[in-house]
């Protein structure tokens, strides 16, 4: 999705899914990407009346480097030194998962991993473990990569019964589309 500039992508997507969440605009790009990816899936899968036991297992390649570079710029010149907590807080990749947790009140198992590429084996193993061990009812998995306008979000919900088998081949196929 790199022929569309990120800000435009964000604008179009949030409009399409009808997003109303003021805090969204304070987020960094990685969090916005992950948030929208999760929103698109969860808006039809969340029970608004009860607690939802949906674990979050996310990963990417660049960690929070897009924001890290911005933060580094704010401290690299001693004449122009302006480190800000609002930027610094996003220099951790798991913050995007925190934002999703807060939005949907998911007091659930969370984890953020970094790989050089999307790893269906690992994601499948880890999500399956969480389901089989009873640590969670459902798992929202995501590959959310963002660095300098190069972005990719692949988010999917896994549960014990469904229409598509949760195995590495299927995941890789869906990812490649």
């Amino acid at each position, binding site marked *: 999705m790199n022929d569309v500039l990120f800000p435009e992508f964000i604008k179009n997507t949030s409009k399409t899914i009808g997003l109303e969440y003021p805090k969204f605009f304070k987020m960094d790009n990685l969090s916005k990407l992950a948030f929208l990816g999760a929103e698109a899936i969860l808006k039809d899968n969340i029970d608004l009346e009860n607690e939802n036991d949906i674990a*979050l297992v996310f990963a990417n*390649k*660049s*960690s929070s*480097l897009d924001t*890290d*570079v911005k*933060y*580094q710029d704010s*401290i*690299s010149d*001693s004449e122009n*030194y302006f*480190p*800000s*907590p609002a930027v*610094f*807080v996003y*220099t*951790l*990749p*798991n*913050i995007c*998962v*925190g*934002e999703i*947790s*807060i939005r*949907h*009140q*998911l*007091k*659930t*198992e*969370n*984890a*953020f*991993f*970094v*790989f*050089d590429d999307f*790893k269906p*084996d*690992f994601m499948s*193993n*880890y999500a*399956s*473990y969480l*389901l*089989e*061990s009873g*640590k969670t009812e459902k798992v929202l998995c995501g590959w959310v990569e963002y*660095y300098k306008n190069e972005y990719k979000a692949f988010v999917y919900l896994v549960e*014990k*019964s*469904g*229409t598509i*088998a*949760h195995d590495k081949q299927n995941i890789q196929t869906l990812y490649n589309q």
Partner: protein
Amino acid sequence: MEKKRWIIKMIANKTIYITDANCVTPLGFDLETNWIALVKGQSGIQFQEKYGNLSSIYASIIEDEKLNESFLKVSNENTFTKLEKMLILALHPIVNKNKVTEKSVLILSTTKGNISLLENQELLIEEAYLGTLAKKINTFFGFKTEPIVVSNACVSGVLAVSVAKRMIQFGAYDNAFVIAGDEISEFVLSGFNSFQAMSSLPCAPYDESRNGVTLGEAAAAVYISSEKPTENAVAIIGDGAINDANHISGPSRTGEGLFKSIESAFKEANITKDKLDYISAHGTATLYNDEMEAIAFSRSHIDTVAINSLKGYYGHTLGASGLLEIVIGLQSVYNEELLASKGFKNSGVSIPIAILKENRKKEIKYFLKTASGFGGCNTAILFEKIN
């Protein structure tokens, strides 16, 4: 569309153990040296006149000269960064003792990796990837599988151990070499400073005078497998890693995620709370974190269990902290001695918890390690000593 129930691979009912450990810190580059210093009450935290644009701060820093000297005994390649040397030194004796096989995996816990490389304007961004860091270590030790990087703020070190245990139980790997490391950098120092979260004096977890963190750098490593241990070992009997769903930079006032993580660990371990002998807590010495922990421990009915934070000895070592503190906790278990919670004098949390004021000899069978971090994350792991 018709819904089907898919048969998912069953989790093997095998016990997973930590059977080997090591650490590299300002107090020493092996376990024994660290333990001797800790029992004496020594701390790696020192006054730093200047660090980049910051001046007059406290931090726990590994001396470059000492590190390089020790590293030369392992390798004379000079292409490694400080953090890489720390990680390699920590893992080296563990790989010597436990063979890396086709079904071994390397799991790296780090928050920022080689972030100080960003100071170089001509850097290729790939050099700062956490995956690049992991790959270098992976290659150095000859792992055949791809490494896993856990980057989940300050719970990473504990979460990495959970991930190892979970994946071995699932049958994805036979054993795991878990390493954790983070270095002091202007990046993190200035960041915590911008939050006004830095203590003006060496940090004092749970104390009424506490006013923030003291940062530190360290590396730690453990070997995890289902092989029956023959000597000092602990079994990983329960874990939980649950989010507060409250705020991205402050903990839940009710300790929601930490409480749930602890309950999840105990439920899995199937032991009662009264069996717990020791808690190695997160104790960063910020007003909010320590208070939140006291509330969570009280809700879990473990507030009378002997507890300490090790951050008064090592500072807050970020991605290293969870694993480093587990490693030292294991030393407490094997030596049957709990360490004082350094920096603590008078309680500054609203609910009384049993903070250790001095070292205490104690037999420990069950030990809980907790951690919390930015993004509302929390982890809890229960260990059982194996005789």
